[in-house]
């Protein structure tokens, strides 16, 4: 049985993404994500910004710093993230990469 053959379940598009607090710094991060991941889709429920992509989502420190106009440590992402979907495959000084292991 694969996931797509679970009875009663209608498989939809597979995506990965991050859920962020709706606050000033996160809005800058979202702008950076959209710049670096042109297929990124942004949606919202109260208090939460959801950014999703089909294959991978990369956050680059340099782009975030341009958007925020100050230095930004990738660990500061901890102050904005609420949840995520996918597997965090890389998190170093310059970027954060979310994707599934199989694609």
């Amino acid at each position, binding site marked *: *049985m*694969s*996931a*797509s053959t*679970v*009875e*009663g*379940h209608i*498989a*939809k*598009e*597979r*995506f*990965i993404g991050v*859920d962020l*607090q709706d606050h000033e710094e996160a809005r800058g991060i979202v702008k950076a994500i959209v710049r670096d991941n042109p297929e990124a889709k942004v949606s919202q*429920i*109260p*208090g*939460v910004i959801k950014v999703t992509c089909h294959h991978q989502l990369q956050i680059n420190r340099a782009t975030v710093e341009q958007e925020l106009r100050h230095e930004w440590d*990738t*660990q*500061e992402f*901890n*102050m*904005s*993230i*609420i*949840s*995520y*979907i*996918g*597997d*965090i*495959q*890389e*998190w*170093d*000084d310059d970027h954060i990469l979310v994707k*599934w*292991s*199989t694609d």
Partner: protein
Amino acid sequence: MARKLGLRETYAAMTRGVNWTPSYVKEEEAFPYHQFEGIKIHDWDKWEDPFRMTVDNYWKYQSEKDRRLYAVLDSFSQNQGHLNISDGRYLNAIKLFLQGVTPLEYMAHRHFMFIARYMPGPGTRMAALCQSIDELRHTQIEIHSMSPYNKYYSGFHSMRKMHDRVWYLSVPKSYFDDAVTAGPFEFLTAISFSFEYLLTNLLFVPFMSGAAYNGDLPTTTFGFSAQSDESRHMTLGLQVIKFLLEQDEANVPIVQRWLDKWFWRGYRLNSLVAAMMDYMLPKKVMSWKEAFELYFEQQMLDGLFPDLARYGIKPPMGVEQAIKEKEKISHETYWALYNFGFAAAFNTWIPTNSELDWMTEKYPATFDRYYRPRYEKAQKIVDENGRFFMLGLPQLCQVCQIPMIFTEPDDPGKICFRSSTYKAEKYHFCSDGCKQIFDWEPEKYVQSWLPVHEIYKGNCGGPSVPEVLDWYGIQPGDNGEYQGSVDQLNWASWHKDFAPV
């Protein structure tokens, strides 16, 4: 000057770099608990923590999170913020959270400290140590965030006592007790993976977004503050599973069995969340069904499980039934809370007409046919100055401890009864899933502390309802109907000078 270490190197230096091999005691004396479950680990160094959280960064960011939160709480209290929530009814969701979830945070704190001490891998221990401190922080910030409401509203005063005693709170309590009495790897599969990764979004994201939408500043703020830690916990959960599956093929059937058990246990626990989402939020963010489709079906079944399939892991037992039940469980659960509301530490009510219409819209296949007629009948009784309660005690499921309220997967009109006999005693279950979990480990579940049976054995303060409520710590006004309650009358008087909305 020496080059500053990068994130990756700092993490390696501050976790593995400070590890040592014991020399005064044998390895198995220092770490006696990680082998009896049959899990085989060959190389603890293969453990990855993508968050690469180190102690210095941990203190830095956690203290910043707390500073932000407490500034909001002060401001909320100074500005009489409680008057700005959507409606007095809303706070009943928060009472349920404080009574049911906050004590679990404390249990998680205790058990992650155990994991942090007893796992042989330093990466695992560091992640568990951070999580343990996080969970203690969550307990504290939840209590601090909700305490401003305790001055003005009923039901917020005795959560610790209630958690150990009240019938519906035995559902979350027994769930967590089941996990902490398992071995360390089963605990991590249960809590870190099945709860924190697979199901947590169903609890926290709609709950916190619901709080944001209903003007509940403290809950929104602690919720998002806690959720930022939860992302790290999700990562721990996914790491545990991948690590176990990659270390040895013999681990696969063990993990599959735990997944089968703990998906179903966690999913049943979430029925309380479903009732909260659909019925207790005056301004609704999304229905339970929509949340289940997004956060479980799309994100987990379509997203995660193809990744796990390469190890031979299948979607867990009961998934098909959970999909069928998305049309039903919020309604069946809230109706039970309405039925037995005289013994709950929060208020219940009949949804307003526009709320009933919202449910019709969200649940076209079931609501008007099966559930709306009950509210119409209950409303008729209210119109005649009554209130419908089920004035007795319900039969409970031996495993999930929820009253036996769930219907057959294909028939919302018929209660699902399952049973097993073990050593000449009969046991009753709400579902095939709960029966299967019992049949796998009857030795464990014959010990269930079932609140209804405990009342009948004379262990809960006395035989009458007032005696039991007193033993529960429920004070007059905490329980029963919302309309005409202390909270509703206060709310009306505090808002009588407000412009009508």
